[in-house]
């Protein structure tokens, strides 16, 4: 539980720091999602349920701290689908952290598009999937490489 709390605060810090960075080359709506490094690391260092707790707490608190509660709904749509996909792929034991994280990035954006489609009642949001999905894969790979390094170093302490 202590480790969970620690990782939640860490992911909130990453969320806040990322918000300070200028938008890069990413298309509107896409972001790097540095906080997901924590989710991936938690999935490998702790139990699956810990990753779920950390993710849920981060989404709720980040939504409240950013002052955009409506963000929470979309984030949950993306976050839960992403975590579910990562748990299944990790259990398959055929993929490395990088592959699992790439799928996580993709499904995160797919989940957000699904949430937006349901909320707005229009399937047109899926036309944005090529841009957002590809971005999700790319940042997922980068986050996965980062998570791999983090996991290697944190293994001794958790």
């Amino acid at each position, binding site marked *: 539980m202590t480790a969970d709390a620690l990782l939640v605060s860490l992911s909130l810090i990453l969320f806040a720091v990322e918000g300070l960075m200028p938008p890069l080359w990413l298309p509107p709506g896409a972001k790097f999602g540095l906080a997901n490094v924590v989710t991936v690391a938690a999935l490998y260092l702790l139990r699956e349920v810990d990753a779920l707790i950390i993710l849920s707490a981060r989404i709720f608190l980040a939504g409240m701290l950013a002052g955009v509660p409506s963000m929470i709904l979309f984030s949950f749509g993306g976050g839960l689908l992403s975590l579910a996909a990562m748990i299944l*792929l990790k259990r398959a034991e*055929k*993929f*490395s952290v*990088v*592959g699992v994280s*790439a*799928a996580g990035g*993709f499904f995160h954006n797919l989940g957000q598009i699904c949430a937006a489609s349901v909320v707005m009642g229009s399937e047109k949001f*899926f*036309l944005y*999937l*090529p841009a*957002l*999905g*590809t971005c*999700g*894969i790319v940042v997922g*790979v980068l986050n996965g490489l980062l998570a791999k390094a983090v996991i290697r170093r944190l293994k001794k302490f958790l």
Partner: protein
Amino acid sequence: MTRNDCLLIALLLLVALSPLMIDSGSEKIFALIKVDGVLVRKLDLSAEARLELEAGGGKNIVETKNGAVSVAEADCPDKICVRRGAIRHVGEAIACVPHKVLIEIAED
């Protein structure tokens, strides 16, 4: 990164890009030609066509080419409809006010 990872990433990319493939064939875009608010012709933008339109005591020649529609010639005094050029996206429009002609792009 393992070989399985690469396969997984390739598969995900394919899924991500799938809306592009489905979309290109299924969506038909038309140019709706209205005179004084009444729909007189519906032109398929995927075909090339040249249409002489008698309206409001004058003539407009409407052309569809390369998925876009334009007014090629007109005998109205201001020629604003001709200068508007070609339009291709849903929601765009060309108006020839003297002849009360309106060309709009719409989805089926």
